[in-house]
């Protein structure tokens, strides 16, 4: 029985070693220290964030696609501390996320303040 115990222990060690090797194999990649997509977007929205912070409001309206998806969370993360209130009718400024760099078409009731050329355009609500 003691031999069986030692064999089982050795088997567990072998299984662990195999799993560890598999982790190394599956995670290996080159080159290291490449900038990730979020970092690149972070750089592209620096001016946008500056403009939004300069508005002097803590909340602005936010319009994007018909469904909430990860890019909306990512946009909030990038543009913090301004709160992006999705489809809010009460805010005087509205940030529209067009997802492409085509010239933005002002939605009804809004007038263009600035096109940031990174998928975002800022609008003011027409009183």
């Amino acid at each position, binding site marked *: 029985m003691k031999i069986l115990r030692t064999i089982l222990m050795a088997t567990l060690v072998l299984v662990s070693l195999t*799993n560890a090797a598999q982790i*190394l194999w599956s995670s290996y990649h080159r080159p290291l220290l490449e900038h990730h997509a979020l970092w690149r977007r972070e750089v592209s929205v620096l001016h946008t964030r500056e403009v939004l912070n300069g508005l002097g409001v803590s909340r602005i309206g936010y319009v994007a696609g018909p469904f909430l998806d990860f890019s909306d969370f990512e946009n909030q993360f990038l543009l*913090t501390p301004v709160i992006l209130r999705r489809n809010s009718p009460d805010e005087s400024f509205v940030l529209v996320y067009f997802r492409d760099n085509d010239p933005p078409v002002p939605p009804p009731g809004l007038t263009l303040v600035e096109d940031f050329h990174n998928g975002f355009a800022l609008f003011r609500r027409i009183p």
Partner: protein
Amino acid sequence: MSAVLFGLSCLAPMVAGWLIVTRLWPDVPRTFRLGLSWMAGIGIGGTVYFATLSLWDSRTISLVFSETVLVGVSAILWIRKGTRTIEQPYAISAPAGGTLETKITGFGFVLTALIVAGAFVFIFDSSTQGGWDATAMWNLKARFIARSDSSPVARIVDSYLGDTHPDYPLLLPSIIARSWQYAGVESTTISEVIGGLFTFSTFLVTFCAIRLLSGRTHAFLLGCILLSTPFFLRHGVSQYADIELACFITATVSMFCISDCGKHSGHLPLLAGLFAGFAACTKNEGILFPLVVVCARILLMLIRRNYKDGMREIVQFGVGVLPGLMALLLFKVLHAPPSEIVNEATLGLWLSRMQNGAQHFTIWKYVFREIRSFGSWWLYPMPFMILYLIVSRITAPPRMSKTAWAMPALVLLGMMAADYMVYVITPIDLQWHLQTSLSRLMLQLWPTALVFYFLIAPSGEQMNAS
């Protein structure tokens, strides 16, 4: 420069944690002290930051207050160094030169650790962005704290940010924001390093607890299994809060296991309370944890009939839990919107759901499915673990008595029962809820499950000793 400043941000918690652990557990082995010190220090710094943030809603006041407390605690403990540090050797030691089992597991552990250290570099490199929850929740909240000149908490709990779980406690975002304030940059790499440190602490605490309670052979074997769990490693740097919670849960349970063995002096239940309080401040799931621990201790006190010692332990635990509980209460009372799960839970709903067989069937179906796929291992180690346990139990001397396993067993049962009840009453689509959270709930309990496993499987060293 940022890296140096971030290193500096870890210094004050490390020193404070080291002194607190030394005061509460004077004969703690050095490696164990290292893991516990980081957790205690960063936990206290983060909890004070979180509590002051809930009170004054200002990052500057929070930073000043948390640093003052850390430095103040360190200074007081340094000046009043009443108890001399007597580092005890680990209780159970293998014979000189080690047995064959110790040699096999020791060699395997060193090799596994080296391979995993290499793999961790690549995992770390590919995870700097963090997972979905990191961007949408934990780092987002930390950014609100670090970037808002006024009222960061008011922004975090804004009604339009309902999808980011505004009711979750803010310990982890507080820890991250504090480090960002020190470093002067809001880099996700810092969040990742913090996650990595918690992963290492979880491993260290689990390893040292088993080294102390069950011997070197089992500690090496535990190290092999835990380090070769891909889900544990990948999640450690995903910048989620689950590893942090796992870390605090494991430390709490380990403190009680060691205390139950009665071989070490000190105020281990107080230390356990401290960690349980931090667990409550980490995630909503953690709020149940101190309650589960208290229930487990009451049950053990009744079974063991040691009312005087049992009550003293529970009181010490209660004192330890207070800082975390106070911070949590301040946040929940002053700011947090009601939790979507608790808000809709009524006795009627609970009774009707309890009688709903389909609800239970779905939960159990996912539990069994998750058990089969948990860990993301290439080679599934569970069958070998079960076989090893059976053989170890058979070869153990009949009169070998151990009490340390009772605490992890009760905590595992209690936490699983609590999580089960949440799934029963959830207002969210059950399948979606299970798919997105069950694996992480299991991960939170995985190190504790390993502690339990290695306490019920007698090691060769224990058999020799008995």
